[in-house]
C-alpha cells in the first residue's frame, strides 16, 4: 500500500513524535546517561532537567530518571554538552551494533 489515498498532496506535519520521519537512524553517536551522577536520578526527585530543556528534538523526558527516545534522537550531543555533571556521554553507534541485532 502506497500513499495514493493520503488526504494531502503536500508535506504537512503536526506536532507529535515521528512526524518528521524516524530521525533516530541519522544518529552517529548515542547519548548514554550515567544514573549514578545524573542529578534527578541520584536525588530521586525533580531537579536539573537541563538535558530536557536543551534537547532541540524534545526526545528527553522530564522524568526521574530522564530517558531518551532513541527512535527520534538524532545524536546531536547538546544534552551531553550541557549536562552540568557530565552524566551524559556520546558513544559511537557502532559499539551497539551487536546489541541492536538481538
Amino acid at each position: 500500500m502506497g500513499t495514493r489515498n493520503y488526504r494531502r498532496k503536500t508535506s504537512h506535519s503536526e506536532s507529535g513524535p515521528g512526524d518528521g520521519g524516524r530521525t533516530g537512524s541519522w544518529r552517529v553517536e548515542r547519548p548514554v546517561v550515567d544514573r549514578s551522577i545524573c542529578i534527578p536520578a541520584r536525588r530521586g526527585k525533580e531537579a536539573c532537567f537541563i538535558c530536557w530543556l536543551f534537547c532541540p528534538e524534545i526526545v528527553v523526558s522530564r522524568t526521574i530518571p530522564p530517558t531518551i527516545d532513541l527512535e527520534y534522537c538524532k545524536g546531536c550531543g547538546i544534552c551531553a554538552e550541557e549536562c552540568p555533571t557530565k552524566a551524559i556521554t556520546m558513544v559511537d553507534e557502532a559499539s551497539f551494533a551487536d546489541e541492536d541485532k538481538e
Partner: protein
Amino acid sequence: MHIIENGNVAAAMGIRLCRATVIAAYPITPQTPLTEKLSEYIDSGQMKAEYIPVESEHSAMAVCIAAASAGARVSTATSANGLLYMHEQVQWASGARLPIVMCVVNRAVGAPWNIWNDQQDSISQRDTGWMQLYCADHQQIIDTVIKAYWIAEKSSIPVMVCYDGYILSHTYMPFELPDQDKVDLFLPPFRPDYALSTTEPANLNTVTLPDTRVDVHGELAHGYMEIRYLLQEDLRNSLGIIAQAQERFSDIFGRGADPYLEPYLCEDARYVALGMGSLTYQLRVCVDALRAEGIKVGVMGLRVYRPFPDEALAAALKGKKGVIVFEKALSYGYEGALASDLKAALYEWLAGTGALPRVRGFIAGIGGRDIRTAELTSTLREAILDKTPAGPSWIGLNL
C-alpha cells in the same frame, strides 16, 4: 461595459474583480504601473486588500506564499530579472501547492541590461511547476486573470499570466470590463483544504525525507518523491481544469472558444505559423498577405504553454505540411523551447502516421528588436517555399 485602458490596468482590474485580499509586489519595468494601480485601488478603498510593501521580488513571493498558506487570495507581478530573483520562491510556491496568480509582464533578461520586450523571463521559468498562460490582447489579459484564479484554486497549482511588455502592458486598447456580479458567480471565495490556524497548528513543507513515513495519526504519508509526482500528475490533469474553466467562463461571460489554441485560417491551411502572445496577432497580417498570394497558411496562437497541450496541438497540426514556430525566447545552446516542445509532441502523437509536419523555428524580437511585418512575412514565405537561406534563423539580426 467597454473601456479603453492599457494592459497593466486591465490586469489590475482583473485582480480587483477577483477580490484578491493580499498583494505583495516589487516594482520593475514594465510591470510597475500594474503594481501602482493595485496600490492605488487599495489606498482609495476600491479594493479591500492588504498591500504589503517588500524590498525584493524574492520577498514578494515569500509574502504571497505565507498569505496563501493562511488562506488568502493573493497576487503579485513582476518582469525579467525580478522574476529571476524570485526563482527560488517560485519553485517553492508550486511545491507547496499554493494557488497564487502572478502576472509576468514579459521583458528581456540581463546581461546586458535591456528593458524591452521578449519572453526569455517566463520561458526560463518553464520547469518550475507553475502553469503559464499567454495573452495576445487586453481582453485576454483581464479574462485570463479571472480564469487563472479559478484554475489555480481548483488544481492547487500557481499560475503565471504572461503578456508582452509595452506591446500590451503600455498600449491602450478597448476591452469589455466584466461585471463584478458575474465574476463573483464565476469565482467563489477561496476555501483551501487547510489554512494556517492556531487551533490546528502544522508545520508545512519542512524537511521531507526521501522515503514515505507514518504520520502522527498512524497514516502512511508521502515522501518527497510522491509529493513531486502528484504535482506533475495534477499539472497534466489541469489541462482538463483549464478546459472546464473556459466552459464556465463562456457560459457566464459569452466569450472565448478553444481553451488552449487560438487558430486563424488554419482549417484549410497547408502551413501553420505558431507562436505565443501578441506576435500571433501580428502574424495574422502576414498570413493575410500570403493568402492574397495564394499560399494556404494560417496562424496558431498557443494560449497555454504549461501544462503543454501536446495532444490538442498535435491534433490541430496533423497532416499540415509544415509548422513554422516564431519565438521571442530560446533555450540557449539549442533552439526555441516551444519548437523543441512542439517537435516532441508531434513525434509522440504523429510519428509513423504519414501526417507528421515539418517544423522550422525562428527567433525574433529578442530584447525588443523591432519585428517588422514585411520581414516577418518574407521569412514566413521563404520558410514555406523552403528557400530559407542557411545561417542564423534569427529575424532582424544585423550581423
